[in-house]
């Protein structure tokens, strides 16, 4: 068996709200190993803390407990829970991607630029970056007439596909997917699933949240049950 890309050990998250002097538990610790080309689905009821865990792996949230040991392309093992911010920034730029349901982008950029941007930031030449971005947009059936326009004017489903195109254009070794297929029509959902399968086949490891159990059945190699820690438990 190949070495895992990600080994999550008792990773949990809670929030301390100083204002009310209150501890709000979000997710009980989970543990799993994830190898290249494998997809782990976080499953559990709404409010169980699935998104919190995903954000804790990406370090948008500071984990409250546990480790997320990531093996880099260079072969080093980095605990994403505690690594210096500059290490996290470098990994986010080159190796670890995050796909959200919501597109936060500059309303003043064209769709093609939005999708190509992460590559440009990695130092890829403009023509090559645009070329790859165009292929991704085409694969997700965003009409070419829209590529010059800003995604701010798009429908929810179109924006979500632009967002997915951007994340998959950037690529990486580990991708974190937060409901990438929510609010998509069946045809678009099929395209996104195909894109995820292609990335898996290319060796990308993924942790994902999908509200559609059919998608979980199709894509997931392993399911991780997530439970909210009871109020009153120690942090």
């Amino acid at each position, binding site marked *: 068996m190949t070495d895992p890309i990600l080994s999550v050990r008792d990773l949990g998250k809670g*929030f*301390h*709200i*100083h*204002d009310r002097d209150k501890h709000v538990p979000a997710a009980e610790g989970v543990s799993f190993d994830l190898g290249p080309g494998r997809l782990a689905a976080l499953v559990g009821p709404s409010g169980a803390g699935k998104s919190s865990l995903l*954000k804790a792996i990406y*370090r*948008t*949230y*500071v984990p409250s407990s546990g480790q997320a040991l990531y093996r880099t392309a260079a072969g080093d093992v980095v605990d994403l829970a505690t690594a210096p*911010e*500059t290490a*996290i*920034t*470098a990994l986010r730029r080159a190796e670890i991607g995050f796909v959200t349901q919501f597109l936060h982008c*500059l309303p*003043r950029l064209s769709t093609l630029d939005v999708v190509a941007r992460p590559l*440009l*930031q990695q130092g890829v030449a403009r023509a090559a970056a645009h070329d790859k971005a165009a292929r991704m947009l085409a694969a997700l059936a965003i009409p070419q007439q829209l590529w010059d326009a800003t995604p701010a004017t798009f429908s929810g489903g179109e924006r979500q596909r632009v967002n997915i195109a951007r994340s998959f254009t950037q690529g990486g070794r580990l991708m974190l997917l937060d409901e990438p297929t929510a609010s998509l029509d069946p045809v678009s959902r099929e395209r996104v699933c195909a894109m995820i399968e292609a990335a898996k086949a290319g060796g990308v490891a993924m942790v994902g949240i999908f509200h559609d159990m059919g998608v979980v059945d199709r894509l997931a190699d392993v399911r991780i049950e997530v439970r909210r820690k009871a109020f009153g438990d120690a942090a």
Partner: protein
Amino acid sequence: MTPILDVEALTRIHGPGCPACLEVTGPAHDTNICRHCGSVVAVADASLRLHKGEVLGIMGESGSGKSSLVRMLYFDDKPTSGRAIFHDGGRAHELFALNEAQQLRLRDTRMGMVYQNPALGLNFDISAGGNIAERLLMSDEMSYRAIRAKATALLARTEVPPARMDELPRNFSGGMQQRVQIARALSTGAPLLFLDEVTTGLDLSVQARILDLILELQEVTGVSMLVVTHDLGVVRHLTTRTIVMKTGRIIEAGLTDQILEDPQAAYTQQLVSSAL
């Protein structure tokens, strides 16, 4: 990542100062005024590292010490104690150990500052082009023709119409004045830039275009920036890491998305939750 600026325990106390100043001020006391001697502790024990090509935000409310911090680094003010090392092209300058002439030389050629108030960063009595030429002259650019060509190119890059380069900046709109300031700050190709509330007080649409411009220039030039702001939107838009200051102290530091979505300190939680 290579460091470009290391700030160590920088402190600035206005007033006589006394041994108790640092103990009786700060976030825990919710004041920066020493109750024993009346001194104002503007910045206390501030340490940070800025890396090459990095954009670091310094966030906090008015009076938190964020502007005082960068003003010392740009030699607008002198620290009471502490050090700062500027790593520039294989040389490490200990900023506050240099003599005044050396400091001015670094400031004029290897650092840039964009102030909230354009009157501080520009000479309103000479033309927009002249403002840039002035800085180019300090960096030993001598030929009139070369200076004029460079000033024109810089203004074009910051979207100031070349037709207006011979006008006085006092006649410009606030947004345009900021563009001239940015062009001036960038003119010598300095690797280190300080931005102090550069979009505060501008119309929203003008703010957005100035921020886009800064982001674009940063990506093209790879310049390192310290961005002082009280505006969460500016931090989100420009920076990858953020430092939060309160009553002269750094109380929290982290990835910008983490600071905004999962702030740890009580004060940062308050600051983030008070966003509109």
